[in-house]
């Protein structure tokens, strides 16, 4: 069997052990409901940051509208489960399809833009999505979509996170992913090497949006409600911060970024008046001392220690 497949299986096995331990602690109530909430939030944020990293970090297309796609996923999945009594899985897939479709439709015209212009256009589109939802009374308008059943639990979150990470990891390590990375490195050269740059930019954007949609579905079905205020551009900034903190172009980084930021946020919850001040200072200091993020573009599995730990095979 191929070595990289063996490595994958090892990681999956290790993750399942981790899952079993946390699940046990949850059922035995050793981890209380406050931390359970935050563990699920960490999972949702990991999906958001890893999928945003595909767009911003790997393909180099600066998007600031990721929360908009999350909103679409949240609302579409809630419509499916609440208004049409569909099973949760159908709701999640529907949310992904809705957000992905919108990502495709938005990406096609806007991905011609570059750098700051794209950033500001995606920010605007994210806000337009939110304002449109705000004005649709079918989904509750400004007061939010209420009465969503709580289907999301640790097991759903965990396995969807695992799936998302492997999906995106495998994508970036394929020829398709290399095409995206080539666009980030030098768009003109990528085009000259036969890469259909529009196609791959839109593909990365669509995949990223679809996963944001899944995260939105999990979010809405955990908090009983989907509210437009959860999906402002400040939320998009927050996901971007996780990606940049971990390192653009590192999946490990995005995971760590999501974990750290969610954790800081939760740990400071008892001091609400200082929480955002400390958070903002931490952000500024991080950019001063480590502008390339904690991991740069390195993966945990690239590190020598990790290889030795795994038996040092190559």
């Amino acid at each position, binding site marked *: 069997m191929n070595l990289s497949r063996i490595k994958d299986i090892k990681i999956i096995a290790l993750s399942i052990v981790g899952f079993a331990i946390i699940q046990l602690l949850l059922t035995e109530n050793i981890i209380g409901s406050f931390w359970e909430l935050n563990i699920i939030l960490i999972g949702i944020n990991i999906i958001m940051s890893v999928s945003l990293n595909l767009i911003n970090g790997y393909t180099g297309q600066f998007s600031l509208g990721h929360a908009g796609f999350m909103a679409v996923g949240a609302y579409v999945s809630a419509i499916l489960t609440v208004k049409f009594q569909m099973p949760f899985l159908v709701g999640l897939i529907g949310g992904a399809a809705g957000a992905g479709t919108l990502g495709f439709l938005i990406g096609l015209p806007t991905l011609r833009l570059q750098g700051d212009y794209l950033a500001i256009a995606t920010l605007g589109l994210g806000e337009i999505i939110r304002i449109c939802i705000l004005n649709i009374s079918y989904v509750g308008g400004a007061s939010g979509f209420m009465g969503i059943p709580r289907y999301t639990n640790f097991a759903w979150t965990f396995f969807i996170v695992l799936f998302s990470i492997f999906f995106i990891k495998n*994508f970036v390590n394929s*020829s398709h992913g290399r095409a995206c990375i*080539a666009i980030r*490195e030098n768009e003109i050269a990528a085009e*000259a090497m*036969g*890469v259909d740059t529009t196609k791959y930019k839109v593909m990365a954007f669509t995949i990223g949006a679809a996963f944001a949609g899944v995260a939105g579905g999990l979010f809405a079905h955990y908090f009983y409600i989907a509210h437009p205020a959860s999906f402002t551009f400040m939320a998009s900034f927050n996901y971007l911060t996780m990606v940049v903190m971990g390192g653009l172009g590192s999946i490990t980084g995005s995971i760590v970024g999501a974990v750290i930021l969610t954790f800081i946020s939760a740990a400071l919850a008892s001091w609400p008046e200082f929480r955002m001040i400390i958070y903002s200072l931490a952000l500024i200091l991080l950019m001063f001392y480590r502008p390339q993020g904690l991991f740069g573009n390195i993966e945990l599995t690239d590190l020598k220690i990790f290889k030795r730990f795994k038996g040092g095979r190559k």
Partner: protein
Amino acid sequence: MSLLKAEGVSKLFGGLKAVSNFDMYVNKGELVGLIGPNGAGKTTAFNLLTGVYQPTTGTIDFDDKSLLAMKPYQITQRGIARTFQNIRLFSELSVLDNVKIAYHFHVQYGLFESVFRVGRYFKEEAEIEAKAIEFLKIFKLDDKKDEIAKNLPYGAQRRLEIARALAAQPKLLLLDEPAAGMNPQETQELMTMIRWIREEFGLTILLIEHDMSLVMGICERIYVLEYGSIIASGVPADIKNNPEVIRAYLGSEVE
């Protein structure tokens, strides 16, 4: 039979004629040079041939099919690969990955196969890796395959760019000032290498230079461009003695 044929090609930028009434052909297997003083429109001509710009008027045919309205990546997939005057590598990627990207459009496996790592994924990835390393060996870069491209010395970056273009398996290779920034000895080595890759891969090559000596040394036929128009064409010996060419070059040097 001509592989590439441009007829009456003009390109206007605003009111400025960058290239006007440009006629040229390149036969299969030939090594042709396009020379001219700085600012004569050589790179614009290249950009027209590779679809970066669309001509205002005129036709461009490659392999008996029109290249008009095609995007650069489509032209590359048709069989024209190029290098750039100001090297454009994927600078943060490894040397190996730079070459692997050139195989991109030959890859058969789809999105599903890559994401779930089934079907042709592993087999094709292994093939790509093997082929890429083979190319790096030819260009004496295989020992540097894991180095980051931007850390290579200048000459090696130029070689890598040519290796990457060849890995796309083109019929026609366009080299934009391959000797720019090289010293005479490096230029000499480059000439030997260009000759050799043409023999080895049965390639047709069109190259831009403003350095006459390199072009005179290896090209079989030469076009001379000045102010966007072809002022002379022919074998090196004729070009050398062409009064128009001498005037164009000396004129520009006297200034």
